[in-house]
């Protein structure tokens, strides 16, 4: 069993994920148990009206307070602050961030950990754009927008990672703290800025190809406002980094 003395804190920010939360936690437990690494799951629920927190409490009773840690917040306060909040309560020396909507599969977490150890990387980022990585549930238009935005980002910002808008990553704890502290953007472009700031701080980044299964229910999050927000942040980072 590939085990080590580290502890991995998996941050799960949730908002109205009562259906997905039990599944994602079951998957995390399944694959972390099989890999033998020490871990905890920190659920940061932002006052979901659908009762996600009650679901999390039930899961805590099943898997134990050591494994499932609940750190809810009263209202929806955004992703960046959710991570800060989670880090504050994390007892691990590595932080893994993953979406709770099942688009990221926890089976990749042991791969992240192995790669991190191989090169003592500061960050390991999941990528949909390289190797065997890919997506499920995207039509041509969605793929074109994604590839176009990614190309533009590569040309303008020269990041040393192929997937900037993904949010399935492993960070050394203090590296994540430093990246968040230097970020100014909010919303989903925050993920992009994190890796740009990482490059500024000369943190090393490695990548693991991941499959991204888009949520079958619910709407795609790439609307007009997101594109405008993306463009604004891209130009801001282009001019300032």
């Amino acid at each position, binding site marked *: 069993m590939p085990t080590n003395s580290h502890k991995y804190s998996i941050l799960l920010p949730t908002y109205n994920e*009562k*259906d997905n939360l*039990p*599944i994602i936690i*079951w*998957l995390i437990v399944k694959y972390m148990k099989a890999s033998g690494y020490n871990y905890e799951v920190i659920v940061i629920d932002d006052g979901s009206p659908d*009762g996600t927190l*009650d*679901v999390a409490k*039930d*899961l805590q009773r*099943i898997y134990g307070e050591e494994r499932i840690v609940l750190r809810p917040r009263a209202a929806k306060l955004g992703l960046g602050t959710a991570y800060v909040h989670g880090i504050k309560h994390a007892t691990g020396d590595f932080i893994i961030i993953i979406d709770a909507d*099942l688009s990221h*599969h926890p089976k990749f977490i042991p791969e992240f950990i192995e790669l991190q150890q191989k090169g003592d990387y500061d960050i390991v980022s999941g990528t*949909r*754009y390289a190797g*065997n*990585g*890919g*997506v*499920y*549930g*995207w039509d*041509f238009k969605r*793929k*074109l927008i*994604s*590839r*176009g935005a*990614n*190309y533009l980002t590569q*040309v*303008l*910002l*020269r990041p040393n990672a192929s997937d900037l808008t993904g949010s399935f990553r492993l960070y050394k704890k203090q590296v994540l703290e430093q990246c968040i502290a230097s970020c100014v953007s909010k919303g989903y472009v925050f993920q992009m800025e994190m890796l740009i700031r990482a490059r500024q701080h000369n943190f090393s980044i490695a990548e693991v190809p991941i*499959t991204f*299964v888009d949520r079958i229910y619910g709407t795609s999050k790439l609307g007009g406002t997101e594109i405008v927000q993306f463009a604004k942040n891209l130009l801001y*980072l*282009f*001019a*300032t*980094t």
Partner: protein
Amino acid sequence: MTNLQRWLFYATLFAVPYLAIVLGTVQTALTSKYLLHIQLLPLLLLILFGIYSVWTVLYRTFTFNDCPEAAKELQEEILEARKDLIAKGFKFRD
């Protein structure tokens, strides 16, 4: 140096000799002979970059991996998870 400064730096490296030739500050037999070509150079470079960009984005779009097996695996694991969680006493709220 920010990305913007880097771009401006390279643009200046190009623009100085370019303007010197086009505006006639520098005149040699060679630049006079190919003046039209030189004048059109920025346009040509822009078009080439445009073609490269469109080709790259389209190529990557068409070769973007589809992973139906990942979706299938997930669906199976969801069913497995539900069964196992119910056996552990968990109540789904759907």
